[in-house]
């Protein structure tokens, strides 16, 4: 497999930021789902 070649900083930033922003979207949804999973069997402990 050929290594990626970036001819300018613009190319590099466009490439990395595109991937990062997609990962961030996935991460946000995953974190929300993980919180639901974590709290799924919580008992109601509020005393007020």
């Amino acid at each position, binding site marked *: 497999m050929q*290594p*990626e070649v970036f001819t300018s900083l613009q190319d*590099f930033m466009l*490439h*990395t*930021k595109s*991937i*990062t922003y997609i*990962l*961030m979207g996935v*991460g946000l949804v*995953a*974190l929300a789902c*993980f*919180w639901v*999973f*974590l*709290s*799924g*069997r919580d008992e109601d*402990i509020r005393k007020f």
Partner: protein
Amino acid sequence: MQYPSVIRETLDSARNQAALWRSRLPSFKELLLSIPRTPANIVTAAILAMGALLTLLRFTLGIGGISNLDNVNPWGIWIGFDLLCGVALAAGGYTTSAACYLFGLKRYHGAVRPAITTAFLGYLFVVVALHYDVGQPWRLVYPIFVSQGTTSVLFEVGLCVFIYLCVLLVEWTPASLEWLGLKTIRSFVVKLTLPLTILGVILSTMHQSSLGALFLTSPGKLHPLWYSSFLPVFFFVSSMFAGMSMVLFEGGLAHRFLHHKMDEAHLHSSREIALGFAKASSFVMAGYLCMRLFDLAMNNNWAYLGTGYGLLYLVELLGFVALPMLLYAFGVREKRFGLIRAASLMAVLGIVLNRLNVCLIAFNWQLPADERYFPSIMEIGLSVFIVTMIITAYRIFAHFLPMLHEHPEYKDAH
């Protein structure tokens, strides 16, 4: 001379207590002979004796006499393990007191004293361990009081650790004041809890992240998989779950070995503490994992994952962050405390691995193998000595002070 009534009362109380102790306390010889000859105590005594000998060698032969440190590798295991891991694992002090006193989660109150004690001992022995690395203990005050390097990140770390150690000392004193019977001072110190907790959180935010910032000056020396402009954030966020995991790990050990020192209220609250801290740790670990992944993508370091360092990186992140995160999550959902204890041990080991990776293993990664640093047996021996001193001090405190139980005269006084 006429003293104000508060001081007079305190002095009288101290005098009475001193007279009482003199009549009660056994002699040093009797005290030594009263220690049970269990295998653990014998091993502890052997390690402490070895440590005393190594200390003598360190301060007579110099740092070159017992360590493999040199000008190329000036930071070794005493910084990578004793200092970086010590500070990270002592973070349970600020996380627990913030949860209890700032966020009002009073159900975690049972964890505050053990966590504060661990944090106090952790920071105290970080300073002790630093002496072995820096040498010349009489110059300890120089960076704070004589010659401040205000443009240095290291100065900020030193100042924060100095102030935070004082804060932890004051936060820790109510337990000892209860034991000493000094009610007036105790009630004054207890009133300081909230401002001290706020100060503790601020100072921890600053120096936990600054320890990561130390490595921002060496982008060429630290492997790209670990080097990041977000290192301070990684260090701070990882300290949160490191501290909570340490509280869980230490709580598990205390349950096993110091069960007889715990009262009913402490035992009753420990399950709730375990579930709450495991849940919080798991979620913070998930966030930390996401940030490390985003950083990998931002720096386009995917190609390094196929190398030996990449394997180490994956072991650190998947084996010691993702796996304990999932174990915590399943442990919380299924209320399986064995899983939570196993996860806490893995998370603690993961933090140790991360700090060693940043400071030692992935540092100077481009140097040929014969120029790389590996600690000498005496350096490792001194680190074992420091850890043993922390455990011994914790055991002594747990034996004498109302740490894992409430003092009968101060029940529900919190």
